[in-house]
């Protein structure tokens, strides 16, 4: 690519970021609050605070796991909106195993390992349903995924208010918290556990290498760019698409498992915490380049963690982080469209 084109691309990206920033400033001002104070508080409540910093990292890890999984499906040209439900199912499976084995005389470490594997299985299972509906039922994965999200939501609510409810009345605060031995051990003085870090590192690096440098990755990419030509060239497209779904489900399920064993220590209705949709946003923003997802996800986690205290400190709703994140993606998409239009008019190839 010519140097001019690259500069132009970067220029438009920066413009989009600035536009998103201005947009949110406007919004904050519109409700008569101080924009820069809001930003200051967000930063203070996250990376500016050593205790909160750990929480940012703890939120960052499941996010990058989910995003990496989404890279796989996106490479294959699939819109895996059902990833939110896949996280939920992973969490449910994990909780089920923990509940099943918690009173057995098995080493807690082993129980945790089994539970986390179960989480992966749950995610794979849920993703496979969406995949099969698409491949053999011809159903667009957006609607299948959406439907399955809702079904997963229903299942988790039923479990929390039904069979798995706390003694007495079921409540939104979820199931009984698991005992200490069944929680992921954390580093001293920090909410971060080493295990999610290792899992995340392994998954991110593996997926990066696989997508970039393996035959599997190349074939997925071929399917994403031109599924018909890929098929004609001999790629077993159905198998590969299902494989992509399952791989993403694996990641989502693991994220769910981490949420149960390392963050909430029980099953809550919002266990997926919107990571599914957030992961899609991150992926869209970095244009599906795995390495860029790491810093961008970190920024998103910072925003999320930092906004938690906005209601207390400034009487602002924590959804400000969501506004920032979505408007970023929106403006990037819009400016991308404008850029393509202008470049097209200039007769550029």
């Amino acid at each position: 690519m010519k140097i001019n084109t690259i500069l132009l691309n970067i220029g438009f990206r920066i413009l989009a970021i600035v536009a998103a920033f201005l947009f949110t400033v406007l919004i904050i001002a519109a409700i008569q609050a101080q924009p820069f104070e809001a930003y200051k508080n967000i930063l203070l409540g996250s990376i500016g605070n050593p205790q909160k910093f750990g929480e940012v990292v703890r939120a960052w890890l499941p996010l990058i796991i989910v995003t990496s999984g989404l890279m796989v499906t996106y490479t294959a040209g699939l819109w895996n909106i059902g990833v939110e439900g896949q996280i939920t199912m992973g969490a449910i499976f994990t909780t089920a195993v923990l509940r099943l084995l918690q009173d057995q005389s098995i080493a807690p470490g082993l129980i945790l390992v089994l539970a986390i594997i179960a989480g992966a299985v749950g995610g794979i299972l849920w993703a496979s349903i969406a995949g099969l509906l698409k491949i053999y039922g011809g159903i667009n994965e957006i609607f299948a995924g959406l439907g399955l999200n809702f079904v997963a939501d229903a299942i988790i609510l039923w479990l929390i208010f039904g069979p798995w409810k706390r003694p007495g009345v079921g409540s939104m605060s979820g199931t009984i918290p698991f005992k200490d031995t069944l929680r992921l051990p954390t580093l001293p003085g920090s909410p971060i556990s080493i295990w999610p870090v290792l899992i995340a590192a392994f998954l991110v690096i593996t997926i990066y290498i696989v997508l970039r440098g393996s035959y599997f990755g190349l074939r997925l990419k071929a399917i994403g760019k031109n599924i018909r030509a890929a098929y004609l060239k001999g790629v077993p497209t159905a198998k590969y698409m299902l494989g992509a779904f399952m791989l993403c489900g694996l990641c989502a399920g693991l994220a769910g498992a981490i949420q149960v064993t390392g963050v909430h220590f029980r099953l809550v209705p919002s266990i997926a915490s919107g990571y599914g949709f957030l992961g899609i946003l991150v992926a869209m923003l970095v244009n599906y380049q795995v390495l860029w997802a790491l810093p961008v996800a970190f920024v998103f986690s910072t925003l999320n963690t930092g906004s938690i205290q906005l209601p207390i400190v400034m009487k602002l709703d924590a959804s400000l982080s969501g506004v920032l994140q979505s408007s970023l993606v929106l403006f990037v998409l819009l400016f991308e469209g404008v850029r393509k239009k202008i470049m097209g008019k200039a007769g550029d190839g």
Partner: protein
Amino acid sequence: MPSPIKINQHVAIMNIQLIAIDKSFGNVHANDHINMVIPSGTIQGILGENGAGKTTLMKILSGFYQPDSGRILLDGQPVTIHSPSDAIQNGIGMLNQDPLDFPPLRVLDNFVLGQKGGINLKAGKARKSLEEIQNKFGFHFNPDNYVENLTVGERQQLEILRLLYLGAQVLILDEPTTGISAEQKEKIFKTLVKLIKEGKTVIFVSHKLEEVEGLCSQVVVLRQGKVVGEAKPPYKTKDLVRMMFGKEIKLAERYSCKNETPRIVLKDLCMEDSRLQIKDINLQVCRGEIIGLAGMEGSGQQLFLRSLAGLVVPVSGEISVDGKLMNRKSYHNFQKAGVYYVPAARLEEGLISGFSLTEHVVLVEDQRGFFIKTGAHRLAVQNKIKNFNIQGKPESQVEQLSGGNQQRLSLALLRSPQSVLLLEHPMRGLDMESVIDIWNKLQDYCRQGSSLFFASSDLEEVMRYSDRILVFFGGKVSKALVAEKMSVDQLGQMIGGKGFERGA
């Protein structure tokens, strides 16, 4: 440019004059200084091969394209036709080969859609109008029937009715009889004759010699974008064919198929798709033989090739490759048996836009381990570039290559050994040098034992390179004719539909 003038539609005279119409698409000069006069009250036939420029010219006349230069005169007045709706306002209506109608809607809806009027549909009035105009021409459509239940022929008829109702004085029919029954054809032809008796004008674009000869008041022949001749009845088929396809050409060295076990055996093969049915193909092809599939596009060659490739499951019959029965095996199994299919749409189906040459090579080569070692493949890529004379670097993206180089790449990507090569219009849009180069390569393959099927609408090419020829016409397939013994005339006539024995 003169301002558009609306012709009084009630004056039923419409002479059309095309003066120096010119239209190019990139490098392709589709219409080259075309002059034509079409008197009213006649059926003007326009004959020509694929790519001769007929459809482009008609699309200009009906408002889909704008000519690069030239003028259109209607009854001596210059007009500019900016869009299809402009055209119909000037009284010109065109029937596409693929009907541009709305299958999920009813006949009445299709008839009415697009007519000017208020919010109120006035269904009652519309029904009456439909009935009136139907009766006038002897059609019997049920207004509440859904268009998707109609056959293609009926859809064409409905479209004719609609255009007439909107006041079309000129009807352009582009290959209207593709895929319709003889009965419906007769009905349409009767209608056309009635129309010209009323003083309307009909332009009949076709490659079907018998129909054109039987129907048209005069015929204009296009070739390679130019008008090459005209004819009036009584028509001499030989002359028409010669104008359409050009002179006799020299035939190349031919491979003679020795009597050995055939490589491919087709027994009582029947296949179909939404438009065509091909019945009872019996064919044996030996190693190194080249079979040319002649005929206009859409006559069944694609269906035939795809069935041989395993992409379409034949309705009945058998395909054997190298003695193995291939029925109902998947497309990928056909590939493993050495049957390779190269589609005509290079960038849409054959190659992957956004992938480099190297990536394509890696995609088709044998997998060595889990991770791609680019080094191992670099040699392969470079070899292919050298052997096939591809103008491009390993990192070049395929969409940046010229058509000729894309086709070379497609060939280079086929893994050896190849038992059967199935090529769909392989030389379409290629420069002369590429064509010669690629044919040399293909003949090499055949010398090494591969059998080759190729579809082409270029008569010269079919005659020059085939050992035997199958002619396709509306789903009918001729017996395999020995190319050496064919003349351009004969082949041209068969492509135009003549000389097909009943039940061949």
